[in-house]
């Protein structure tokens, strides 16, 4: 499905967020037993990203805030 042209930047930003969440999980999963600090940091980073996504301040994400 092709998105509307004016949503392209938003789509790209959301993809970046999803890839970052994916990368954080992939980094942490192998260390669940041997590196709790790393896992906790990854969880905090994921929470931070999800909080910003849920806040939904699109203009800030796209750098359009005056």
């Amino acid at each position, binding site marked *: 499905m092709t998105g509307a042209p004016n949503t392209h930047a938003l789509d*790209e930003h959301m*993809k*970046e*967020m999803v*890839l*970052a969440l994916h*990368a*954080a999980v*992939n*980094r942490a999963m192998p260390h669940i037993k041997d590196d709790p600090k790393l896992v906790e940091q*990854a969880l905090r*980073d994921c929470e*931070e*990203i999800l909080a*910003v996504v849920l806040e939904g301040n699109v203009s800030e994400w796209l*750098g359009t805030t005056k």
Partner: protein
Amino acid sequence: MARHDEVNIVVCAKVVPLSSVTIQIDPATKRMVRKDVSQELDPQAAKAVEEALRLTEKQGGSVTVVVMGGDDATIGIRGALAMGATAAIHLSDPALAGSDALGTAKALAAAIRKEPFDLVICATESSDSYTGLVPGQLAQLLGVPPLTFATSLTVEGRTATIKRQSEGGYDVVTSELPVLVTVTTGINEPRYPTLKGIMGAKKKEIRKYTAADLGLGPAEIGESGAREKVLTVGRPPARPAGTVIKDEGQGGKQIADFLANLKLI
């Protein structure tokens, strides 16, 4: 103040389909279908970026990521910038599509020559096409020695030292800068982009070069310049079904007999 041992590093990276995507091959062109496929920074290239970042965090300098790919490669380039790379160069031109390994190396070399560099870092091979040819060709075109299969990399003064993975262990190899280093999968675990990194990456520069900017024409790049042709693409032969041993008191013996038949024990 600049440090005397700071290193300017160029990382050659690739943007590839997400590992969760089932790769499709276009039967007409024998090329991987990339259009409308979700992509990411190649996990192998992420290790090259990570190694470059670790070096510059220790010694100062810059990390410039060079990527050749279509418009949809931006997502992977931003990924590298979000990890912490200083700047990025995107080689994007329909004329580059269909380039073989040598054409790719020529384009990368032309872009890298525009940069002041001490060190070029590449993955040993990309995780989509796995030719492993580009780094050696690139080193030749740049006129720098290649240090390959690095499982560790250090730079002291103007000397780079790697541990080169070998069948029985490793060799320690050094070279004066400038040099090209290929890193193996085991060299590090790359960092992931944080929110701060993602937002910071939006302010970083991505320079775009076309084939003309690189001084390259159809005789050297793209489908017309490719001397290497993919004739067929096939699936690996199906593996025969395995033997299931149900343990009804004789399982251990049956496994031992099975291994003995194969002369493994």
